[in-house]
């Protein structure tokens, strides 16, 4: 997949995560999952999944800017 493809994929995943952050379906759920309340477990898992998506973002869709910006960055970067 091209960098543009990865960028679109990860941006889409981040938008999905933003929507999934609003877990209305667990609002009144006080069941325990692995010892944690369902809502707390969900948001803990949310942090882990977010880290994974951001990991893909920085590896596959880096730099966040254009080639010209990258060239400017390289100019100031020690080799």
């Amino acid at each position, binding site marked *: 997949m091209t960098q543009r493809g990865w960028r679109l994929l990860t941006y889409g995943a*981040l938008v999905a*995560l*933003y929507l999934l*952050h*609003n*877990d*209305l379906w*667990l*609002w*009144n*759920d*006080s069941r*325990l999952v*692995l*010892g*944690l*309340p369902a*809502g*707390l477990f969900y*948001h*803990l898992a*949310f*942090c*882990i999944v*977010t*880290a994974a998506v*951001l*990991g893909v*973002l*920085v*590896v596959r869709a*880096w*730099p*966040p*800017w*254009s080639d*010209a*910006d990258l*060239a*400017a*960055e390289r*100019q*100031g*970067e*020690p080799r």
Partner: protein
Amino acid sequence: MTLAVIAVYFAAVLLIGAFSSRWFHGTSDDYFVATRSLGPALLLLNLFGANMTAFAVLGASGEAYTTGIGVFSLMASSSALVIPLVFYFVGTRVWEIGKRRGYLSPIQFFRERYQSGGLGLLLFVVLNALLIPYLLIGLAGGGIALAQITHGTLPKWMGSLLIVVVVLAYVAYSGMRGAIWVNAFQALLLLVLGGLACWVVVDRLGGLAGAMQRVAASHPELLARSHMRPLQLLTYTLIPLSVGTFPHIFIQWLTARSARAFRLPVAVYPLCIAIVWLPSVVLGVLARLDFPRLAAGATANSMLVKVVERHSPALLVGLLAAALCAAIMNSFDHQVLAVSTMFTQDIVIHYGFHDRLDERARVLVGRLFVVGILLVTYLLSLVFDPSLFKLGVWCFTGFAALFPIVVAALFWPRSTRQGVAAAVLAVAATWSYLVVTQWRSPDYTLGGTGILPVALVMGVSIAALVVVSLLTRPPDAATLGLFFARGAAGGGVPAAGGEPAPTAAPG
């Protein structure tokens, strides 16, 4: 034992601060932004530490004790998504322009981007007006937390004084370099000790599942979020945008060695948030088992300390106190340094002493401002009223509402100085009005709707920015060329620090 651990901790901090001065170059660039030399790990620990205040750690457990697990979704997981994205989109861009143009402060960036000294001055006033109360809250909160954890052996005034003296020693002496190494140590301490304290307490309570089942039986409301409104969760995601306008975070972005140094902070930040916040929230909820009701005169924010004291050996209580000091100091020192940088660079040097101060004199002025700011903050903390703690949330609101001007400056060439000034003034007016009228609102939402004030203030900010920018004359092409043209790095045009800008990157 607690006092002994606190003493060892302060000694360790001073030692690290003194040791880091070995790398101090003696230049103002090194004093204020560590010669832009931070690699990924130090950048991660410093960005994380600067955002993780004691106010957040104690406040999270206090809120969990009072209302339950909802605080994690409101403040932790929303930050885990939003803050790294601000680093990715805004931080890397700020770093690139800052390096190219030689900026040391956010005011320099805005002043040059919009070619307006007046706008720089306006932002200087507004950013400091929002940052100084935040700084005061951190110091006063630190004094109160130390008094609680030592049962008054260290009174509030002495706890705050200790923090001021230790921060003064390493910030005035080593500048950003001292703050960076001390904060790396402190952030590691925070990441390890919260989990350790939680593990010990949960073990003493018979394991996580057993303890939570007891909470489910006695206080089931703490394990769900019936008291929260969905709009509250939705609009709370705007609050972490404040990280994009905090002067101390802006300056920390400038300390990075390269844009690539941001990759680790972007990817790992959500895990750091979870590691610190989960123990705070779990311990806050479990505190209800031992302390079903708040004693007269007690505050919910003291529950973390109380529950750890009840179930842990004295050594761990001392280590928790050290972790609280770490949480206080690793944001406090960067804030002090940020205020000092803005006073030195944007007032003293910009208005009158640009050609008259050599490198050593600039560092000396920065040090004198650090001393002055710490002294004034300490004196104000002595008369600080704890009921003003909620001002902290309002400061976040003000910073978050200014985020659109950062985005416009970086990504919208058509934005104008008048548009940005209108947005800043609109934020100042709306924010002041809401602070006065909503101060007594118990749930910090607009009229109990669940919508946070930040949504309204930010909406006003965006409207003022867009409308006034479109009604006024666009910026000239030469200025835009410095910030937007492909490959243009402003060759030949003096950068903010007075040095010629690097030549253009090949486009």
